[in-house]
């Protein structure tokens, strides 16, 4: 039960989405909408209803029935991508191409995508109007101690073996905040492994690993060319320094993590 899906779409405008969401979902928001917003057209309400139906079938398992996150899938109502989406330009791309290892691609008609996006934007607006709800705020992640985090970084955590607060991590807290920073800190999922391959001819090539299973190694060379070999026909080494993060999991206490977060958040 592990793969996820997002949705796609193209609702009219983000501003319109705000009041549409309020008018379809929450009684409290409905009153608000009736006072402050223009009436939803029957067409838009129908589109959101259709989007809701599509969402329940295809997306709800991972992203939750209300798009607020479910089994393994992120909360879409707090998604930066959804917030920045206009007419499905951002969500549509994710839906059509999927996310490697996380979410399969979906081949939806443009009408289905429109409807689903309308529903997501409506849910986002509703969540905003309702206040307290699921999700992780930057404020939630402030329970650590900066000095202890720094000591752990430089000592027991072994972070300083590979990282430097004034080098690769300088301004890291400007680049990432809150949960995103914590996730990068625990394990940088987007990090790529490098491979160095010695061919039977003796030639040595290196590049970024794209495929590595029991049978093949496929790498992308510096000029963008893809090359692959059966693993039993070559000699190769793989350099994946980010895997050191996984080795730390059995050793972290939750306090270590919170302290490290406190320290990293000072690196602005």
């Amino acid at each position, binding site marked *: *039960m592990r793969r996820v899906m997002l949705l796609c779409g193209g609702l009219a405008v983000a501003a319109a989405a705000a009041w549409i969401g309020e008018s379809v979902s929450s009684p409290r928001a409905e009153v608000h909408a009736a006072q402050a917003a223009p009436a939803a057209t029957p067409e838009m309400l129908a589109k959101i209803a259709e989007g809701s139906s599509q969402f*329940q*079938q295809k997306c709800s*398992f*991972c992203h939750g029935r209300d798009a607020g996150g479910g089994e393994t899938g992120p909360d879409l109502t707090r998604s930066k991508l959804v917030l920045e989406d206009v007419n499905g330009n951002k969500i549509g791309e994710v839906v059509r191409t999927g996310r490697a290892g996380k979410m399969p691609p979906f081949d939806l008609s443009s009408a289905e995508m429109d409807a689903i996006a309308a529903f997501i934007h409506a849910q986002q607006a509703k969540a905003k109007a309702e206040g307290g*709800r699921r999700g992780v705020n930057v404020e939630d992640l402030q329970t650590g101690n900066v000095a202890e985090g720094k000591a752990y970084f430089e000592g027991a955590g072994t972070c300083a073996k590979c990282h430097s607060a004034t080098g690769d991590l300088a301004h890291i807290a400007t680049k990432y905040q809150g949960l995103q920073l914590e996730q990068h800190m*625990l394990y940088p999922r987007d990090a790529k492994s490098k491979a160095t391959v010695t061919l039977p001819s003796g030639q040595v090539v290196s590049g970024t690993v794209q495929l590595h299973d*029991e049978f093949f190694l496929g790498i992308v060379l510096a000029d963008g060319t893809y090359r692959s070999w059966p693993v039993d026909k070559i000699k190769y080494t793989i350099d994946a320094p980010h895997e050191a993060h996984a080795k730390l*999991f*059995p050793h972290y206490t939750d306090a270590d993590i919170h302290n490290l977060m406190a320290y990293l958040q000072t690196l602005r």
Partner: protein
Amino acid sequence: MMNTWKSKVCVWTLAFGSASAAVAQLPDQATLLHPGADSWPTYHGDYTGQRHSKLTQITPKNVGSLTLAWAFQTRSQMELKSSPLLVDGILYFSVPDSVFAVDARSGHLVWHYTYPPNKGSHIGQRGVAAYKGSIYFLSPDCHLVALDAKTGKERWRVEIGDVAKGYWTSMAPLVVGNHVMVGVSGDFDNLRGYMKSFDAETGKEQWTWYSTPADRTGGMTWMTGTYDPDLNLVYWGTGNPTPVLTAVTRPGDGANTCSIVALNPDTGQLAWSFSVSPHDTHDWDATEVPVLIDGPFQGQQKKMLIQASRNGYFVVLDRTNGKSLLTTPYSPVNWSLGLDKDGRPIPNPAKDPAPDGRLIAPDEGGATNFRSPSFDPKTGLLIVPAREAYSIYFSKPADGTYGWSGADYGVWEKGVLKAIDYRTGKIRWEHETGVSTTSGILTTDSGITFTGDFHDNALALNTADGKTLWHANTGAMISTSPTTYELDGRQYVLTGSGGVLFAWTLPEGTK
């Protein structure tokens, strides 16, 4: 047409030793109790849930020449998660809203049934059940549908749950005699889990068993259970209590949630219950296959139930009474303070989801999930499609006490097949599969383990040591648990990949 008729007669003859038996409608209870080599009449293949086949034509020596017999395209965007049944030469399998009947020799489509569009979650469909000429299918919107196995025409349809409240269905029913037993799914709402049994002939409801008392919720019955005919007990795993990630409104163990339960199939009465995750706050359903095995345990012959559970623990129970024989982790686990006197893990309160997050192993997807393991009687190994995984779990008062009530985020995972010796819980071998595991397991008496890896490769491994013997890239994620059967003297192995069902066999004449 003529060929089909002839081959049917041939199968009947093999099964009953007499062509006159062809008037009976298969599978009957005798077939379900003792399935032949030419049948796979239940989700697990037989009532034990071992997913182990006695077939030996494909061996470690010749499996390297395994080749494609045929492929069937469902043309569905939804992945096949179903285990195809084989009854009388026809395979029956499903994706949400669709059932297919396909010739097991040729891959030819015999019929295709479609259920009307509906609002139930379409996350998956594990398959169908068969009994006396009917095929039983659960729709995403909680209807049990009986189809004519010959034509795919609907015989009857009954509602088993209210989709508007948040229930849906994804499992293959289990048939025991005249009982068609079904379970329900649902995670987003505070709802009571239950099982129901229906008359196989008429669809009339026979009984309902609720996982939780009226003032508690959760305990969904997502997956197909197993059955011991001698004890006349059905074994079923139940899901997490709700709200999911907080227990502020549900103090205590949460009896019969995240549990293995034993029920009388005639009455729905609970015989015993074992809680694999007392007081769960991490969504660790105990709905993984409750595998039934008989054999020695610490010097005594035992009737056992073994489960590699989602929470990271392997459990061995005496299935006559539900008492623990062994509980031990098979994958990284950091949420427990040890075991209580009854062999149940003790949850560490410090590892409950919290406002500032807790690092937890395994993650929410669990150390294993719905994909079937397989038990190989010769080696005593339960081969589990396992994962090693960590995530961070959050919950705070503002998240409320309805439905999810928090959030969790996976940070790292690795797929590792683990061969667990049931007598000790020790891992005999491991086989890494990539970022995660996607496929279930089938073992055969010749010593082969069939499965798949994260890179879409169908795999045959040596059951003794986990070494790879054969592979084929199928081009899409393998979300099925493989099955096997023998027809006309040829052994076939089925693996579903994406929306395609592949049938593998040896070239004619292979020794």
